[in-house]
């Protein structure tokens, strides 16, 4: 396992950006859906959740990368789960200490970070096979992608469902809130709409390239 990649690829900007766009955990990989939808009914909750998850992810990735030659292959999953659970417990206490309001708003979902497939997947599939720097940079990128995805969902849901953005009113006093956006179905619909939009952009891009090839061929 330790010799999986004799020549590790250099750490480039792409190591970081990969997690934000090409392998965005929410929109492309569809990982970590549960907290995504559950806490994305306001911008602040969504971003706080994203940041907490990203910090746990980076810490766990650093740990897995440093101990990649010490942990036997057979027990790696259990080890990683326990490591992640430790960091999540720390995060739980930290959020409790910083802001009680936030702690109550996020509720059990802070502890549920531990079962976020995004973290275990990244730690097991990526960080445990790479040296410290690329592992941490990549984990930070994926974490940033997760925050970005949560922000996209939270912003749409809060603006439509409550008429506010991070607590500030955007539409003036006569806005009739679109309540369903704050409720569970809204989460599914907004995520579905984002996925549709991204699929459409991707399909359009692919079509453009295909068209270009055709015209190039003719010309």
């Amino acid at each position, binding site marked *: 396992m330790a010799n999986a990649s004799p020549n590790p690829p250099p750490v480039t900007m792409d190591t970081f950006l990969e997690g934000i766009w090409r392998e965005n955990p929410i929109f492309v990989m569809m990982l970590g859906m*549960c907290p995504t939808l559950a806490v994305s009914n306001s911008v602040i909750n969504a971003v706080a959740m994203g940041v907490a998850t990203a910090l746990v992810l980076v810490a766990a990735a650093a740990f897995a990368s440093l101990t990649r030659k010490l942990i036997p292959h057979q027990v790696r999953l259990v080890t990683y*789960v326990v490591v992640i659970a430790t960091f999540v417990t720390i995060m739980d206490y930290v959020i409790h200490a910083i802001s009680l309001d936030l702690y109550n708003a996020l509720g059990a979902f802070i*502890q549920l970070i531990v*079962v976020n497939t995004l973290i275990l997947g990244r730690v097991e599939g990526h960080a445990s096979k790479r040296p410290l720097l690329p592992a941490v940079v990549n984990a930070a990128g994926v974490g940033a992608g997760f925050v970005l995805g949560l922000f996209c969902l939270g912003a749409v849901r809060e603006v439509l469902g409550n008429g506010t953005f991070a607590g500030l009113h955007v539409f003036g006093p006569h806005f009739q809130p679109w309540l369903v956006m704050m409720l569970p179905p809204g989460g599914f619909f907004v995520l579905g709409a984002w996925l549709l939009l991204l699929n459409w952009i991707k399909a359009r891009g692919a079509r453009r390239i295909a068209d270009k090839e055709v015209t190039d061929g003719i010309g």
Partner: protein
Amino acid sequence: MGSDESLWSIFINAVLVNNFVLSMFLGLCSYLGVSARYNTALPMGIAVTFVMVVGSLCAYFLNELLIYFDLEFLRLISYIVVIASAVQLVEMVMKKYAPAVFRALGIYLPLIATNCVVLAPPLFQTARGYDLVQSLVFSLGAGCGYILAIVLLAGLRERMQLANIPSVAQGGALTVILAGFLSLAFMGFAGLGG
């Protein structure tokens, strides 16, 4: 400590009103992943329910033990380990008695261990202070709710394979929107219980 909710109301609450998947967004990874076909959705639901009940039972006694020794900060870690063992147990039983289903579920079966829907009942029952019977009824209800949700979605998705859908909507987007409609339907139960 303790909660005086009646058992019936806890059960209905967990199955319909606060359905774990559709109104609390728990276990969405397996929900979106395994629901493509009805034949795998049902066994998956049953496996999840079983793990939930076993996990909730173990977690209840574990929690008593942790409180006795003043070790509440170890709660999360110990719950996770207990659930992982319960999943292992289900895996072994399934491999022996239902090898076809075992193969069909593939990677999603071990992944139950990192499924939030399974970790949630122990956490919620601790937070709400349910006693032993209440905890069991709660986790059973949560499991039934999961089965109901995943079987409904699997039925819808099987129908969708015959439908002519635009290419942009294929895959994840369609599934998520279908789940949204189901979730909208389940909101109708909100007046029930409470």
